[in-house]
Structure formats: C-alpha cells, structure tokens
C-alpha cells in the first residue's frame, strides 16, 4: 500500500558487534524509572509472552526483530544502527499486504504468542485496529527523546493523539499518476479519470481509504468527517464508472507496471512510487488533483508480544534523528514524518530536497488530508460496501 524504494538494506541478521553504550544523539538516556512503573522485563528476555511495557534503565541490549515492507529501507542504515547501538537487528521484509498480514498474525496475537517481530511497520488503519484490540505496547517517551522532531500535525493526529502507541515512519501522498504520452495532455482533476478517451485505461485503488478519499473530495466531501452517505456517494460513482467499462483494474501496489508500460493512462498512485518510476520514464507524472488528495502514514508499532521493548524504542529514537532519517527519505522517496528536514535532506540528496513530492511545499500539503480514524464498525461497513464493487 505504501511506496517502497528500490534499494535494499545490506546488513542482515546476526551481526555480532561489540557491545557499547547506546548513545542517543543529543539525548541522555534516563537512568531512573518514570513514575512508579515496575521494572518488569529483563534485558535478554526469553519470555515468550512478555506483555510488560517495561521502562528499563541503561542502554538497550540484545536482538531486535523488525518486520517491514520490502524495499522500504536505505542501504547501510541498519548496519549503521547496529554499530551505534550495539544491538543486533534481525530485519525481515515480510509485510506486503496489511490484510494478509493481519490474517496471519491474528491467531498468534490473540493467543499472546510471539509473532516473530518486536517492531512492525504498518498503515494507520491497521495500527488503529491493533490498538483497539489491545495488542500494542505503549512507547515510552523517555526512551525516545528524538520524538520531539516529529511533525506537529502527525504528533497531534486523531488516530493516536500524542503518539503513545505508534511512531510514524514514513508518509506519502495518494494522488493521480499519468503517462503523458498515453494521455496526450495534463491531468488535473478527478473528472479526468472519467474522460471517455481513457476508457478501459484507468485504475483505482481497491483500498477504501486510498481509493475513495480523493473521489469523496471531488464530490465536495471531506475525509476528515466521513459519513455513510458521503462514502456511499463515492462508491456509487465508482460503480457507475466500472459498469461503463471505464476502469480497467482495481489495484493494490501493483499499478506500476501497467503505468510504465502504458497499459494504464491514469492511475491512482502513491507519490513515492511515481518518483521512482520517473527515473526510468520521464513521461510519468504525479499530481494532486485540484479538489484535493489524501495522505497516508506508515507507523512503527511494538506488538504486545515483543521480546525487546527497549531495543524497539532505541530503533525508533535512531530513526527520529534528522540526519539518520534523511538517509531513509533519500532512498524511500516518501514524505518525511519529521519536521524541518530540508537542511538534512540537502546534505544527503539535494535533488530529493527540491522534489515537491518528497519535500512538499505548504500549498500542496494543505490540499492533502488524512482520514479520520474510523470505528471498527465504520471501517467494516465501508470496506464491505466497496469490496462489493471492486470484485468479490
């Protein structure tokens, strides 16, 4: 669902490095405990079902198991982290579809069994779902002093005010991408999607939020206050166009090949993907429709079955250091979740710093809205209604 970069980490599991004190840049690691919470977990815990939100003293030690989208990491990042922290990272790229992943971990998590990850990266809606089920550990702010670098709008997000259970990892824009040789013109509005000239060469997202968001906005409705009526109105429009044969496919992440090949003229797309595609195909363009686009945020979460809470927090803190994070952004080409990234980005990759889809100017950011958090019932209701149209 989220954009993924091409380049891949090199350092993998089980690199034994000498243990050194963890040095958080610019932050002193708290030695004393916060208010009254018992020191529950041990550093090298073999506890299969540790549920404690332990605040620990001293540096993090041991192994950290991370589960992330494929190719959503910068070269050398993990090796650098291991060196700086003395931790060993077992990095797995086994997160490729939120619903599939959920179906897989649902049973183990419900039984409080380890799922093989101490930290996972996932879209906001899945994070909200896991939190609602009580399956996430709280993130101790005392161990993540770099949290102050987080964008204020993300910190205050209604999905998790104050970001107690989630730590944004990367964000991006959900807009339109088009192949200018295939379209013969520029695309600026949602109505362009319905241009009969593009019949059978349009693709939409099968995900409710990514697919319907911009359509709702084109109908004058907001994604920050969705209702059954506004969502249904958008779904009806999609159904109408589908019946007309306007829509070729409903896609997940897999629109890129069709777009590059010219099979699709206009697609709903993620900004990061298009930036990557443009490297090989300058005819591809990304645009935020006039009526607005939506944003997505991928979040780092700590499942309550984690075996190394402290290490996970150390990782988050490392990611939130601006100079480290700039390297991530330069590879992933997403929209940063940290504020004031321009300087650091310019040091790493000036082109990225000037790319409006990586470092969007204010007027673009204003037009891009995030979805309001949905209740379980709402999410299911919209999802079922849309699934009936997308096929199945």
């Amino acid at each position: 669902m989220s954009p993924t970069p091409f380049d891949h980490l090199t350092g993998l599991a089980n690199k034994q490095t000498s243990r050194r004190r963890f040095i958080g840049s610019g932050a002193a690691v708290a030695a004393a405990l916060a208010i009254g919470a018992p020191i529950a977990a041990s550093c090298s815990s073999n506890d299969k079902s540790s549920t404690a939100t332990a605040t620990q003293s001293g540096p993090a030690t041991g192994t950290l198991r991370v589960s992330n989208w494929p190719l959503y990491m910068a070269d050398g990042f993990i090796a650098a982290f291991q060196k700086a922290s003395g931790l060993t990272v077992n990095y797995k790229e086994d997160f490729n579809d939120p619903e599939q992943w959920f179906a897989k971990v649902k049973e183990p998590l419900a039984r409080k069994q380890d799922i093989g990850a101490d930290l996972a990266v996932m879209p906001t809606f899945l994070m909200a779902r896991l939190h609602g089920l009580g399956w996430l550990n709280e993130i101790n702010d005392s161990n993540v002093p770099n949290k102050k670098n987080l964008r204020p709008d993300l910190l205050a997000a209604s999905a998790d005010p104050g970001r107690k259970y989630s730590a944004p990892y990367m964000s991006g824009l959900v807009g339109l991408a088009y192949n200018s040789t295939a379209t013969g013109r520029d695309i600026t509005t949602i109505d362009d999607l319905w241009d009969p000239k593009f019949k059978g060469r349009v693709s939409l997202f099968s995900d409710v939020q990514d697919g319907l968001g911009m359509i709702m906005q084109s109908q004058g409705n907001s994604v920050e206050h969705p209702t059954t009526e506004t969502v249904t109105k958008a779904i009806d429009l999609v159904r109408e166009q589908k019946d007309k044969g306007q829509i070729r496919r409903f896609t997940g992440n897999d629109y890129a090949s069709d777009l590059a090949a010219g099979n699709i003229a206009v697609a709903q797309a993620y900004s990061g993907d298009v930036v990557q595609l443009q490297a090989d195909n300058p005819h591809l363009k990304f645009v935020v429709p006039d009526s607005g686009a939506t944003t997505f945020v991928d979040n780092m979460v700590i499942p309550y079955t984690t075996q190394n809470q402290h290490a996970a927090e150390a990782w988050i803190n490392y990611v939130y250091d601006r100079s480290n994070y700039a390297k991530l952004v330069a590879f992933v080409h997403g929209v940063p979740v940290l504020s004031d990234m321009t300087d650091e980005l310019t040091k790493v990759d000036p082109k990225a710093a000037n790319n409006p889809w990586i470092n969007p100017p204010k007027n673009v950011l204003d037009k891009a809205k995030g979805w309001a958090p949905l209740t379980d019932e709402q999410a299911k209701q919209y999802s079922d209604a849309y699934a009936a149209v997308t096929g199945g």
Partner: protein
Amino acid sequence: MNQRIITVGRTEKKVVKASPKWGDLVLRFIAALVLLYLFLPIFVIVLFSFNDPKGKFNYTWQGFTLKNWADPFKYPALTDALKLSLDVAAVSTGIALVLGSLVAIALVRQRFRGQTAVDTFLVIPLTAPEVVMGAAMLTLFLDFGWEAGYATIVISHIAFEISFIAMTVRARMRGFDWTLEDASLDLGASPTRTFFKVTLPLIIPGIVAAGMLSFALSLDDFIITYFVSGSTVTYPLYVNAAVKAAVPPQINVLATAILLISLVLLAGGTLYRRRQDDGARPGN
C-alpha cells in the same frame, strides 16, 4: 528407416509403410511450437536480467548491462529466501514421494475394500482453496502449540503434494504388468526384494515425473506458505512482496541462474547416459 518388416505368422512377411514423412514433420513442428510457447516468458526474463533500470522497476528496457550478473547476491534476503525454498521443496518432495507413491501402488495393485473412498479422499486436497486452508492449517498448528516456521511450511507442503504425486504415479502404473512380480516371486525372490528390484525400477519414470512436479509446486506455493511461515520468508513470498513494489533485476538473474544450472545438469546427465549406452552396445 521408412519401412518395418513384421513377421506375421510363420511364413508370411508383410511390408508396412510407415507414416508419410510430412505428417511426421508437421507433428514435430507443432511440438516445437509448443515448446517455444513454454519458453517465451523465460526469454523475456533472461533478457531483462541484463536490463539496467535507473529506478526500482524493471519493466521497461533501459539498456544492456552485466552488472546485475556481477552482483547476483546483492539482496541477501532474496538469496536466503531462495535457499530456503529449495531446501523446503527438496525435503517435502522427498517425504511426499514416499507417502504418495505407496498410495498409488496400493490403489493400482489390487482391489480392496474402501478403494473408492481412498480415491475420492485423495482428490479433495486438490480442490481446497488455499486462502482458507492456509488459515485453518495455521490454527491447527497453533492449537498444537507449534511455532509457525520451517517445520510448519514443510508439513503443509507435504500435505498438498501427496495428491499430486499419487495421481501422477498412478497414470504411469495403469497397464502395469503385475505378472512380472509373480514371476519374480516364483523364481524365489522375497516380496521385499521383488518390490525393490522389479516393481520399483519400472515405476521410476512416473516417480521422477511426480517428483519434479512436486518440487515445482513447492517452489511456487505462496498462499498456504504465507500463513504458516511465521516470519520466515520463502522465495515466492519474497517475490510476491517485491513484485507489488519493485522487481530488482537480481530476481531475474537468480531465476536465470537456476535455469542454467538445471540445464547444465540435464545436459550432463544426458551425455553421461549416452556414454553409458554407447559403452553397452554390442560390438564395443
């Protein structure tokens, strides 16, 4: 040779005209076309392993380069996943071959009570949709208290391979001459020896074919493997995830490499056999 002399009866000789050359040629031509059809996507895959994309997608031809081949193991996760899948395929196929072949032999060898039931029972695993079976199997494993990982992957692969193997071996065994076994037993061989020296060698082609199918099946399985793999990543899991995101040329490189190695093994095996056959020809 266009003609064959067949002796019919004791005194007559009859000359039979073989099929006209053109019919033969047409048939071979069609077969060659089908073979070409099988390889068409392979050519594309091999070609694109030499592609030089600047971005993360390997979809449009950018230019020729050898650098992907120079660094095929650039993505350790991909290489590890491949090694794991080969391992799982080999192990699961080995075990499933034993279980499946025994069933096939038993079903063809003699009539017994409950035969049709077993028949039907074997077809069912082929019909079950992977999504729901994968989830149900995971629940089963969790109920046993097992952790999802290598063992559960192998176990679930064996489960669906047995039926494929049984059906393939059976196709081979139809029309098997069971009197050969009798002859062997009459000559004094024990049933076990008969089995290993007479029955088994004659079924080998079927078992080999079944084994190859099963291996390919295991290498390819995605859905069931996804559910029961825990955090282990197999080759199809990696590719499936990558495909939704980006396809580094290294995937093409490794796929081509596997093909080349298999091709070499194949050619080598054929040459070896030929040398053996040549050596065994009378007059040498």
